[in-house]
């Protein structure tokens, strides 16, 4: 009799554990449910939505923003934010295209220079936020304007089209043939997510960022070099912008002032709807990736349903506020 009860209770425990795991997943990854619902709605509304080509297209479109999202997510985890990311992408796009088209530089060297510039913008942000102690809002707003200004100077406000064949595979290449293959950019994006997830969860650096975001003072009193780590985070975010711009320029086959426009906000929205706390210290980078996929999916579907692009902006704002409201309610409980 007693044995039976214990079996019964252990089975109950098992069931409970399954429920617990489900509730944990839905709590942290509500975004996946959102992606699922959107997919169903759009698939029902348009026969072209749930096709291999369109899904692949969505992933390919996500790559550039998703790589920037990694940087923003790290910065948000450390309880800061970066407004310059979008214009960093713009600046590095323009520099890359200009060097190749007008500077006659070898494309690979041009990419290298682009990476250096992106990193330098990030480092500028990091140093001024950490060591000169100017609020991130001011510093990154300033570097946003500076970056945009330089991009205008370089391009004289006209697009620079036509990228050389040898680097086009970043944005347009497929592994396994163009019909059913996987886009190179998606492979790059996934590798970056794997690397940065490891970095955030299994290294001293990543763990320190969580501590800094959760309570910078307490992190300092545990012997964590708060300033250094914050500066590094901004710098890495800059490098990621440059990487994103390489993919963007080769995908669009052109650099223009519209490249990367508002990426910093899209990245922030991805973090928030993915479930990363703006207050810092909470959330996983992978959640932001789902946020970015959701966002791209949303706009892809809207475009497919011929929704006015101006209306799309309104909807984007609604999605953001809706996500935050849900987050607030969830945290209250």
């Amino acid at each position, binding site marked *: 009799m007693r044995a039976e009860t214990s079996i019964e209770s252990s089975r109950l425990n098992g069931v409970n554990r399954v429920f617990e795991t489900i509730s944990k997943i839905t709590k942290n990854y509500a975004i996946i449910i959102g992606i699922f619902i959107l997919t169903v709605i759009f698939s029902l509304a348009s026969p072209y939505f749930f096709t291999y080509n369109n899904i692949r297209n969505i992933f390919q479109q996500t790559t550039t923003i998703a790589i920037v999202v990694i940087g923003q997510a790290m910065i948000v985890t450390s309880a800061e934010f970066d407004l310059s990311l979008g214009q960093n992408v713009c600046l590095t796009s323009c520099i890359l295209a200009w060097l190749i088209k007008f500077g006659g530089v070898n494309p690979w060297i041009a990419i290298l220079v682009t990476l250096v510039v992106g990193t330098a913008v990030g480092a500028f942000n990091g140093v001024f936020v950490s060591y000169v102690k100017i609020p991130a809002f001011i510093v990154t707003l300033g570097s946003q304007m500076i970056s945009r200004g330089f991009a205008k100077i370089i391009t004289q406000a006209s697009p620079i089209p036509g990228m050389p064949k040898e680097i086009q595979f970043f944005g347009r290449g497929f592994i396994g043939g163009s019909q059913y293959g996987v886009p190179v950019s998606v492979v790059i994006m996934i590798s970056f997510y794997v690397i940065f997830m*490891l970095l955030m*969860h*299994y*290294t*001293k650096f990543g*763990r*320190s960022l*969580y*501590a800094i975001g*959760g*309570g910078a*003072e*307490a*992190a*300092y*009193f*545990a*012997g*964590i*070099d708060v300033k250094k780590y914050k500066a590094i985070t901004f710098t890495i975010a800059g490098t990621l912008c440059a990487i994103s711009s390489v993919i963007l320029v080769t995908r669009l086959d052109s650099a223009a002032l519209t490249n990367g426009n508002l990426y910093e906000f899209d990245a922030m929205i991805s973090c928030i709807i993915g479930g990363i706390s703006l207050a810092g*210290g*909470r959330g996983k980078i992978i959640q932001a990736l789902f946020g970015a996929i959701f966002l791209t999916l949303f706009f892809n579907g809207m475009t497919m349903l011929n929704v006015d692009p101006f209306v799309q902006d309104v909807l984007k704002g609604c999605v953001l506020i809706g996500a935050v409201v849900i987050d607030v309610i969830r945290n209250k409980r």
Partner: protein
Amino acid sequence: MNNNLLILDGISKSFPGVKALDRVSFEVKEGSIHALVGENGAGKSTLIKILAGIYQPDEGTITLAGEKVRFKTPYESLCKGISVVHQELKLSEPLSIAENIFLGNLIYKGIRVDWKSMRKKARELLDKFGMSIDVNEPVINLSVAQKQMIEICKAVNHNCRLLIMDEPSATLTEKEQKIMFETVRKLRANGITIIYISHRLEEIFDLADNVTVLRDGKCIGTVPVKDIDKRTLISMMVGRELVNEYPKEKFEVGETVLEVRNLCRKGVLKNISFKVRKGELVGIAGLVGSGRTELARAILGIDKIDSGEVLLYGKPIKFSNFRAAISSGFGLVPESRKTQGLVQILSVRNNICMASMEKVLSPSGLVSKRKEKEYSNEYVKKLDISTPSIETEVQYLSGGNQQKVVVAKWLLKGSDIIFLDEPTRGIDVGAKREIYLLINDLIRQGKVVIMISSELPEILGMSDRILVMHEGELKGELTREEATQEKILELCV
């Protein structure tokens, strides 16, 4: 004159999973100072929030001056003459004193704010409490004590009959406390009834007429203060006899570990020299702002030293930053547990391992969760930290257990010289003793412990040697045998 202003009858309040108040009944006499004591979690703050109209009771009645009342909002409570001075003061810092006093209650002349009469009335109020500051001064420029006075003025201006003060002395210096006590007595003389909440039992004997003890949401009793002694009061609070409040153990004194010679930091520390030996607990006493924390910060490389030197085992050392001090074996349990000691939203495991990431790496160089868990479980067990799991966020732990997590962090790091800055602040009586036992253990293991504390009984009860600081200077050094409360006070004022 001896009728009851406030009668609480069978007040209960539950939150999901806890019964915060369980049929609490007591009476508060008009024109008295009524102390409310109890350990953390005993239900004091819930009770205050009910009186302030922030929470509504599930059952029970509140009778204020013969009238049954039920407050749905804080405003209703305020209108009935109940004011609360919270521990975290609720003033609008950039606004002037006058404006703060009249906040939510501005005087108008037609539709225009009547600044002139507001300033005049504010002036009268300040004069009444012997404050000579300009009423146009922004509140941000005031000291904590002055801000508290402004809160009190605000309450008086709201025609308050019942003033609830939540741990008003916690952040005041000794001198400021005396002034505050005088003010409270003055209020009583003016017929205002005061409910006074404090962790410091000495104050209650000094100030209060009656005391009500809460424990685990239940009212244990209400007694006149003159009929009770500290021992009985403590045993009412913790529900058992506390054998020995300060379980001091003596250890054999060994070699000198840390020596400070002529340490100076401009405007903060003046020519400080002392030695700390193995096996002894050195206590640093002094008023808030006397340079105790600053001394620790200077030794630990957090603040720059202008001149003088620090010797570790006879060898001069100089830390360019706090990290350097940590790697030389120093640890600091900081003054503010909540913001400096712990990252509240991270788990017990993360907090314990925070300073020792290099210890929890796997051979591949990545952080090993398994090692983190092993170490965390080890220290949770060793220090008897009561937590549902090592994955629980530290914000859900009690004060005493939180402090143990901070200590665990330095033990895992392997720190040999540990500075404790106000180690028992805001921790209840029972848990304090556990911290003292932990300090004994540290010294037994050969660690050097330096304790900074504002609580004289604690300094006297636990230290082998006492350094007394005043205005950045070391005013004297007393042995355990010669030290008394009076001698220390003499040196630090």
